[in-house]
């Protein structure tokens, strides 16, 4: 590895991020081709994947050494002190190189080898089949059909090959409309509600400028509204703030003029753009990374970051969609500017509110594959997979996950998966360990031959699904049970488990969730044990009666037959230990010495063990 000059530095200190008394751990830092590894004196390992590194900072030299601060995309922040400046400099330079790759081929996914053969890998990629998904929704049908217009990516490079459109939309209409839409992203089906016969469609903004029209585009929208046999009007939802949309008109883009389109109802929902979201998250992280943060600074920071306001805006837009379909039976067309950020958020979240399938583990994967991956959310740019334009990076997908988390908080029984599942997905959109999120659209992914050269994340998550199951999930609910979240502001809370994932001192010391999850597992095992025991008892009883019978027979006929004497061999089944291993009661193990942070009065340093072992399991999924 040409970037690695120093592979091992000893006597490195890892500072506790929130300790006001500057607690630290001493250990050895290793630099590998894929990870930065810190092993402390208690042999605890902290693994940091190079791709997770968002920024590396070398601070001014201090008496104890050279501070190196690493911020990760999964919100881990580590603060090392390297004794020699020279070593620090080497590591700093290496990490700068290693964390920003210039070529896709240098990303971890292309070297990651989970020891699977080609057919297993291929099967993994086939786990999710979007054609199946559209079939499940009930398309094609008499109103919607599969269009082959984009089969060769000729009409729109950032769309998938297979698109569903109203059957009345002929190819010339599609071609005409695509020319009138940003990046050729013409209106297509995103979700079809079988019960209401209404659809969620998506596209990019029209190139309307101040007055331009396009007959084909108008036809296509009419075709969409006509594809709904119940309600003839449809909503066109522009997810941008009105001001932004108006500004776009000057650049020859803009939004639909209600006068030109028959039977549409136009609506702005005011979600801010990727740049606003990026700086909002930055502010949020700045605030909650402060040592000794006061309650007032926390809330005023939360407010001024605007983060929860943005989350609420996305949620409100999704609710608008769900209501249009459920209450008014109306189809909805959603767009923003290019139709791959806010549009993906709103369409996917809207579908999730409407269809309980997307609230299952498999269904959620399908949803991400459909509305995010296949419709060209630019994962590589938004997550900064390669050394590219930092202005393209934005936490759009993270916001989507956060909205889902808020829903799981309000509806604890509606989701098959748990918070860990959301966190794990978030981990992997940045890890570049699997091929799913590499590239910015399907065409690019095909060119990268991801299905041949990398693995899909989904089968690995499914294999591990025990970890991601919500023990309170009630699966009995009907498919079309709509979630109607309460969006009064007080329902939106700071997602500590995401933004402080690795700051264990901030978390509850006992997790009700884990206990219930384990108990649920244990119950399944106990049920099995009961069955086993019952059948053994039955066997025993039968055998006893048999024995009595045979004994009588034997005594009369063959008094000395040894063969019947072989007793069945029972193996004593060991039960799961119930109360010892499942519930780990934590109090104040000397390791978690929160107590030294209550007052400056006792600022003598104590050997602290910051538990960072979480990361290992995560990265070697």
């Amino acid at each position, binding site marked *: 590895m040409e970037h690695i000059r120093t592979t091992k530095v000893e006597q490195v200190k890892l500072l506790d991020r929130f300790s006001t008394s500057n607690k630290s751990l001493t250990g050895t830092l290793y630099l590998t081709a894929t990870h930065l590894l810190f092993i402390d004196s208690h042999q605890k390992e902290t693994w940091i994947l190079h791709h997770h590194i968002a920024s590396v900072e070398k601070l001014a030299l201090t008496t104890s050494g050279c501070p190196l601060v690493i911020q990760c995309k999964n919100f881990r922040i580590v603060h090392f002190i390297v004794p020699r400046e020279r070593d620090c400099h080497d590591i700093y330079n290496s990490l700068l190189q290693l964390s920003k790759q210039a070529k896709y081929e240098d990303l971890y996914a292309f070297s990651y080898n989970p020891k699977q053969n080609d057919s297993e890998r291929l099967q993994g990629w086939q786990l999710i089949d979007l054609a199946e998904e559209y079939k499940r929704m009930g398309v094609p049908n008499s109103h919607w059909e599969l269009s082959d217009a984009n089969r060769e990516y000729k009409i729109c490079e950032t769309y998938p090959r297979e698109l569903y459109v109203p059957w009345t939309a002929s190819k010339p209409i599609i071609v005409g409309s695509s020319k009138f839409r940003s990046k050729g992203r013409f209106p297509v089906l995103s979700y079809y509600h079988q019960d209401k016969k209404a659809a969620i469609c998506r596209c990019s903004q029209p190139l309307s400028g101040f007055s331009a029209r396009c007959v084909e585009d108008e036809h296509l929208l009419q075709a969409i509204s006509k594809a709904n046999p119940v309600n003839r009007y449809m909503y066109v939802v522009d997810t941008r703030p009105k001001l932004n949309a108006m500004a776009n008109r000057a650049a020859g883009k803009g939004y639909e003029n209600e006068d030109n389109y028959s039977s549409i109802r136009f609506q702005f929902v005011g979600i801010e753009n990727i740049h606003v979201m990026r700086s909002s998250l930055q502010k949020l992280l700045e605030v909650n990374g402060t040592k000794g943060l006061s309650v007032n600074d926390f809330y005023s920071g939360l407010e001024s970051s605007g983060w929860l306001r943005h989350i609420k805006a996305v949620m409100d837009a999704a609710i608008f969609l769900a209501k249009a379909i459920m209450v008014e039976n109306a189809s909805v067309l959603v767009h923003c500017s290019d139709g791959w950020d806010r549009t993906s958020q709103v369409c996917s979240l809207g579908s999730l509110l409407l269809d309980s399938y997307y609230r299952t583990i498999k269904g959620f994967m399908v949803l991400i594959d459909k509305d995010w991956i296949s419709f060209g959310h630019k994962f590589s740019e938004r997550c900064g997979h390669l050394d590219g334009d930092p202005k393209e990076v934005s936490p759009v997908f993270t916001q989507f996950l956060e909205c889902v988390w808020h829903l799981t908080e309000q509806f604890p029984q*509606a989701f098959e998966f748990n918070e860990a599942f959301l966190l794990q997905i978030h981990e992997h959109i940045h890890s570049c360990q699997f091929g799913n999120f590499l590239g910015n659209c399907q065409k690019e992914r095909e060119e990268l031959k991801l299905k041949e050269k990398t693995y899909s994340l989904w089968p690995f998550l499914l294999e591990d699904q025990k970890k991601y199951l919500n023990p309170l999930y009630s699966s009995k609910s009907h498919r079309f049970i709509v979630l109607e979240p309460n969006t009064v*502001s007080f329902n939106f809370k700071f997602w500590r488990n995401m933004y402080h994932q690795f700051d264990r001192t901030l978390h509850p*010391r006992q997790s009700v969730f884990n206990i219930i999850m384990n108990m649920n597992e244990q119950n399944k095992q106990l049920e099995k044990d009961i069955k086993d*025991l019952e059948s053994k008892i039955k066997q025993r009883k039968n055998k006893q009666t048999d024995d009595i019978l045979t004994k009588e027979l034997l005594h009369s006929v063959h008094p000395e037959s040894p063969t019947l004497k072989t007793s069945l061999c029972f193996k004593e089944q060991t039960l799961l230990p119930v109360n010892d291993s499942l519930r780990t009661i934590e109090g104040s193990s000397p390791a978690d010495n929160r107590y030294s942070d209550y007052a400056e009065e006792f600022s003598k340093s104590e050997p602290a063990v910051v538990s960072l072992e979480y990361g290992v399991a995560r990265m070697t999924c």
Partner: protein
Amino acid sequence: MEFAELIKTPRVDNVVLHRPFYPAVEGTLCLTGHHLILSSRQDNTEELWLLHSNIDAIDKRFVGSLGTIIIKCKDFRIIQLDIPGMEECLNIASSIEALSTLDSITLMYPFFYRPMFEVIEDGWHSFLPEQEFELYSSASGEWRLSYVNKEFAVCPSYPPTVIVPKSIDDEALRKVATFRHGGRFPVLSYYHQKNGMVIMRSGQPLTGTNGRRCKEDEKLINATLRVGKRGYIIDTRSLNVAQQARAKGGGFEQEAHYPQWRRIHKSIERYHILQESLIKLVEACNDQTHNMDRWLSKLEASNWLTHIKEILTTACLAAQCIDREGASVLIHGTEGTDSTLQVTSLAQIILEPRSRTIRGFEALIEREWLQAGHPFQQRCAQSAYCNTKQKWEAPVFLLFLDCVWQILRQFPCSFEFNENFLIMLFEHAYASQFGTFLGNSESERCKLKLQQKTMSLWSWVNQPSELSKYTNPLFEANNLVIWPSVAPQSLPLWEGIFLRWNRSSKYLDEAYEEMVNIIEYNKELQAKVNILRRQLAELETEDGMQESP
């Protein structure tokens, strides 16, 4: 005085009741001496029974002859009554106003309440100081019970029985009492079995501007120190406030006179600052139209969570002195009846596993709040909707319950009780059919003859059928000290109290039930497995016997 005089209109028909989460109900409104009752006289609708003492404030307005009374309760609920007829409405409103602000304690409902349940254990005798002391005395010969305050003469706000160092006689206690605010001489609050360290509490020393000292006081608190050990004095006021107190005759322990003690000043707010904080918080929570920025800034401006953080931090500090530094602690503020008790009782929650059980928590409230002389009657006279601001009203106890809830959230398996238990205590502290929270001190309770004339809350709560509602199904005794995180990210708003009437908790309740089901099912399965295994073992031995010749 007869209640009938206050009830101008005892009954009105065709009244429409609006309340959170229920459809509007039309029915007959009745006023009794202690209750407001609305009954639709239909089988399937629940009746409303509201204690007048639970009413914090009322508003009335008229549209034509239809009057509307908005009743704001001390538990933060808001209900609305539409009453046809202006006169009826005015009568009802003024009756409610009069009945909900009775100034004589003996007219309160607890004096009229006749329990409909059989008292198995009289709660008035459940937590006697002598019994509590026995729990300590076995481990230590350094403490004794003193009856110096038997007639409430030495300290009106202390109970008749207190625990003091063995080496200090009653005569010295009398002298110390003259040197401490309200006569509240230092007494034992908590004894840490693990290392024999203690928490004591008192009122501020009356040093005044000329630095008065009291040898007996110094001797008393020094008597609690081991040889060569230092102790900590935690003053719950900022240094500035403590210095100002000297001008009014109060003050703090001077280093020169207490060389073995290190003083730490913390800043816990009191009185109207807390009451205003509560008013602002409830106002913010009740307004559903706030946009995100406004909600967050209102939440911040209420300062409620700042108070929570400050109280918890101070309690953690006290617990840290005891458990980590191996040093005894004396805690006081000004009177020693508010922030002092918040800190001593929370420190015990952190340090003492017993105080995290139902029984132990009840004992803690009895010992550290009721007998320690927290003036419940004054502090809980009004809640978040009061207009007449009195200096003595403050949600000190609610803040304590909120802090307990915060720790409970961080250690959800370490408490025998659940959130509902805390909510229940909050409700009864403000309005109750039981006598437990009446009065401001033991001496007042004695004079009121509460033990004879009213029922204790504990008599009711400790019935098995009631207890089951308050039991945490996840509880597993945890003998460790539990250190909560006090970072703002770890201290959320207590939704169960503050958003209780502002949003439906249907899905959360259902999920809780499901959780309970899983736990119950687990117990059932385990019991069944055990029976089956025994059965199988028996069959096997039988077989063995048959098979052996």
